[in-house]
Structure formats: C-alpha cells, structure tokens
C-alpha cells in the first residue's frame, strides 16, 4: 500500500507557480503563430489542476513553460516566487531537478534499465551518492506498489507499471509540483483510473498536481479546471462533483 509522502516544503508565501502575460510565438512561413498568447494565472501550493484544451490550444506549450523546459517569447514565469527569465540553463536544470517532477504520456523510461536505476536518474543530477540513490529509489517504488518489480526493465512491465515507475522517478527528489502531460494517454481506462488514484493520494498528501489532458473524465478528478483555446484561457473554474478514483483503485490493487 502507498505510504504517505513527506509534506513538500515551500520556501515563500508566494503562489507556487505564477505566470504574467505569458506569450510563446513561432514563426511559420513568415506568419507569427501565438501558441500561448498572454496568459496570467497563479497556482497555489496544494492545488490539483487540470489543464484542458484540444490539440493546438496551447496547453502543452503552457505546461512546458511553467515546467521550465521551454523559454517564453515574452512574459514571466515565477516558480515559488522566483522569476525564471534571467536564469541560466544550469540554474533552470537545478530548478527542474529540485522543484518539478515530470510525468509524460510515453513514460520516457530508459530502455534496458532497471526500475531502480530509472527512478534514481534525477538523484544522479542532484549529486546524491550511490547508496542513498538506491535507498530512495527503492522507497519510492515501494510507495508506488512496485516493491516486487525493482529490477525489471521497462520491457518487462505493463503500461500502468511503467507509468508508476515514471511517477516514482518524478517524486524521488521530493518536488513541490508534479507536472503530468497526458499521463493516461497511452493507458486503458482501468489503468488510467489507477494512475488518477495515485495523483489523488499525492495531492491529499500535499503535493501540487497539474495534469494536462484533453479528456473530460480525467479532468474531472481535479479540483480546478483551466481550459485553453487558441493560446488563451477561456475558462478557469472549481470542479464540482469531482470523480474520486481512490476507492476503486484501492480495491484493485489490494
């Protein structure tokens, strides 16, 4: 069973993530396309947010910018009160390493690499020694119910198990926020519920969770729903009648 993760630390009373007039534009054949066009919003510590929108709405570009993977054309991203615009690539790397955990649609695990070693990758870049890397990776894998899959390579794991390894990897540095980009996009409905149950537990334990999705069923698990269209936020509201997945998932994994 999943243990309760340590409560993430905040360093300021600022919003965890704040964007100000965020713009990302591309030049396509002489025409400027605004993928994200002036988005200002803030996400507080402990929120569970679904970012919705169709393909091309700008939701993924927005997420890449708040995850410090992509650089805005203009505007500001503040993480934990700190502006990121003037940060060097090394400072951004450290920021991603310490404060942000990523979960991807295609899991992005290293092939031919055991679950332990996959989960331990972020700790390498945090400069943690080998023994501690191993201990912390094993602990997170146990949290994800993968105590008996420690040495399996991704090829020997089901899709749901792979995504749980990826979540363990995202959490192993004890980040403030989990950024999940279509985390259930490659999974069947039942496994998707399992993953959503994990997110719910993590959020209940205090971790901020941001899920990018185009599926209403997935978005309905969140507490807050932000919808994008043509690079702008067209809706930002509290979700009433949330779907609660944990009971179902607990029964499954018990």
């Amino acid at each position: 069973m999943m243990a309760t993760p340590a409560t993430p630390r905040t360093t300021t009373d600022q919003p965890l993530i704040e964007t100000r007039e965020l713009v990302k534009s591309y030049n396509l054949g002489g025409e400027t396309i605004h993928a994200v066009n002036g988005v200002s919003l803030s996400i507080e510590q402990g929120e569970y947010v679904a970012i919705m929108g169709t393909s091309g709405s700008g939701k993924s570009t927005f997420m890449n910018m708040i995850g410090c993977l992509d650089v805005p054309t203009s505007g500001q991203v503040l993480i934990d009160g700190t502006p990121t615009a003037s940060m060097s690539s090394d400072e951004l790397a450290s920021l991603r390493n310490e404060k942000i955990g990523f979960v991807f649609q295609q899991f992005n695990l290293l092939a031919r690499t055991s679950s332990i070693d996959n989960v331990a990758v972020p700790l390498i870049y945090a400069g943690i020694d080998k023994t501690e890397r191993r201990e912390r990776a094993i602990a997170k894998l146990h949290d994800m119910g993968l105590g008996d899959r420690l040495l399996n390579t991704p090829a020997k794991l089901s899709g749901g198990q792979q995504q749980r390894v990826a979540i363990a990897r995202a959490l192993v540095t004890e980040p403030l926020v989990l950024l999940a980009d279509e985390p259930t996009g490659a999974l069947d409905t039942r496994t998707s519920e399992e993953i959503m149950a994990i997110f719910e537990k993590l959020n209940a334990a205090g971790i901020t969770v941001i899920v990018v999705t185009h599926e209403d069923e997935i978005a309905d698990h969140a507490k807050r729903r932000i919808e994008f269209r043509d690079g702008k936020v067209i809706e930002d509201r509290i979700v009433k009648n949330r779907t609660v997945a944990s009971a179902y998932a607990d029964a499954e994994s018990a």
Partner: protein
Amino acid sequence: MEKWLASWSVNIAIAFTALRTNLMRSILTMLGVLIGVFAVTLAVAVGNGAQVSVMQSINSFGSNMAIIVPEPDNEGGRRSFDRGRLTQRDLRAIEREVPGVIATAPQLRSTLDLVTPGANATTSSVGTTPGYGSITNHPADRGRYITEADVRSAARVLVLGRTTSETLFGEFDPVGESVRVDGVPFQVIGLLEEKGSTFGTDNDDTAVMPISTMRQRFVGDTLPGPDDLQLAFAGFEEGASLVQGKIDITNVLKDRYRVRDGEINPFRVRTTQEFMEESQFITGILQAVLVAIASISLLVGGIGIMNIMLVSVTERTREIGLRMALGAKRSDIRNQFLVEAAVLCVLGGAVGLALAWLAGTALTAYADFPVPIGLGVAIGSLIFSAVIGLAFGGYPAVRASRLSPIEALRTE
C-alpha cells in the same frame, strides 16, 4: 573530489550500457582506433629500436673517440694541398698535445688472402699498433694482442677475428698455428673477442697485424709517403668533451701542416658524438615519417569515433531531453558523451597497444631487430587514444549538450 569521481563513475556505467546496446557498432568503431593505435605505437617502437641499435653499434665501436681521415676538408677556402695528410708522427703529436687523449691508433687496411693447408679466407685486414684493441673495444681474449716489440720488428704475426678463425681452423684453437698471407708465412698469436655484426657487416671477419708489417709487405707502395696512414683513431678519457677534442686535434694538425686562415685542411676530424647526433637525426626523421603515416590511420579511426558519436547523439536525442527535464545540466550531458567516446577510444587503444606489444616482441625475437615497447610508449598510447576520444567526441558531445530540452524531448 568525491562527487566528481562519483559523477564520472556514473558516466562510465552509462557509457558501457550504451556500448553494449550497440555491440557490433561499438566493436567496429573501436577497430578503427585499435588499428590506428597499433600502427602509431609500432611506428614509435620501430623508430626507438632503430635509435637503440645505431647507438649500440656506435658504442660497440668505441664510444668516446675522434676519427681522423687524411682527406682534404672540402668545405670552402683555398686548397694548398694536392692530397690529404696524416702520419704516425701526427698521432704522437696529438697524444702529446691534446688534453684528454688516452691513446691513439693508426690504421692501414687491405683485403688479403689468408691460406692454411685446408682452407682460405679473403679478409679485410688491419695494420695497427697495440692501442687499437682498447680504443675500438675489440681486444684479444685468447693468446695475445700485437705488442710494441711486434711493431718495432715488423713481426709476421696475426690476431684473428672469430669468423676468420672459424673459416680457417674450424673449431680448433688457432693460436700458434701458421697462415700464409698473400703468400707470406705468418704466425697466429691471438684470437679477438667476438663482436657480432653491425648493419650486415661482420665485425669478426677480420685480422690484425703490426702496422709496420702491413706497410712493408702489403700496402707500402699504395701510400703517398713512408709514414702516411689511411685512418687514425684518438681515444678520449671518459667525460672529456669531444667538441673541444675535435677543435684541439684540428689545431694541432693545422699547426703541423702550416694551414693558414682561409685555406682548407688536408685532413678531416670526426667524432663518435657527431656520428651519434647524425644517426639520431636520421633515425628521428625515419621515426617521424613512420609515425606521420601511422597517424593517418589513427585520424581515420578518430573520424569514425566522431561519426558514431554523432549517430549516437541523434539516436538518443529523446534520452538527452529526458535527462535534461530530470535535472541534467549541459555539462552533465556533455560529459556523458565525452566519456562514451573516451571509453571507446581507450578500449580500442588498449587492445591496439596489446597487439603492438605482441608484434614488437615477435619482431625483436625473430627479426633480430629491437622493437621496444616500454612503459612510456604504453602510457603514451593510452593517453593519446583518450585524447583522440575527447578531441573527436568533443563536437558531438557539445552538440548534444546544446540541445533545447523541449525540442529534444519532442523528437520521435
């Protein structure tokens, strides 16, 4: 320091995983470096071997001496002599006046027919004085060498080289036996130490007799004067400067022949030091040419490394993006690929070095030519292959580290 080591050990582990994943490709890439390091190492070793064997043969000849030849020194100046000059009296003057000279020895050489009742040998024979044996490092080790008394009396005595003795007497001890030299009866009084060959010339195929005997009976009429020599040696004491010695000998002889400024000398003085420097220069050039040619194969191997590292970076763009998302700095990515290239090169280089060592050992044993691969050459080769890895792996590694995280992650 500990962190530094840890991060490199992680990179080495990643490198080995990557190399195992594409085993065939890795081996072929290594083969390029292997051949290059093999060729360069062997070229260096062959050059060193040539140097060593030239030194050995010069040393075996007598390491600290000047050689004086009665030939006009052709470099510039007016020529007031129709022929070269060098006499035994000149040698006595050199012994008297040049500091550091231990002994001098004259030389008259002629190819003579040595005949015994059962055999004959045509031998390049030397007429000289007792000091010759020690100056040229070739004394008698059985019987005795020629003496001053032999020289005074122009005795018909002969000291044989090992090869000549074997030709004439086989396994028998020749001391005390008689030999006819161009029809003249001689007595064998000693046997020279075995010396081996130098560049295909057998140093043991020789015979030594008093200079007076050689002059009177064999070469007298071919010489321009009654006291003239074909060649002379002046041995210096250990540590004496041959540069100064050469100047001193030249001045003594100039004085004796009244050579004025602006006139050329009727003799030439060379030293073993000059021979060594010249041969070192020549073997140095030989080595440089060999290494240059061999380096081309190493260059090709290096280009192979660069090629495969570019492929590796392209194939693993998504992995690079992922590692960046998880917190890898540019330097982490760069080092990861540098280490991978260096591991390829050092593995290939180590095998190439091992093969070069085997080839060198085989050449030394079977081709009678020293090809020494010492610790210095070995360490040099390994460092060199690591440098090749870093040089040719550098561009792909830097390119990998400059990728934008999001673009790398989006790559399919």
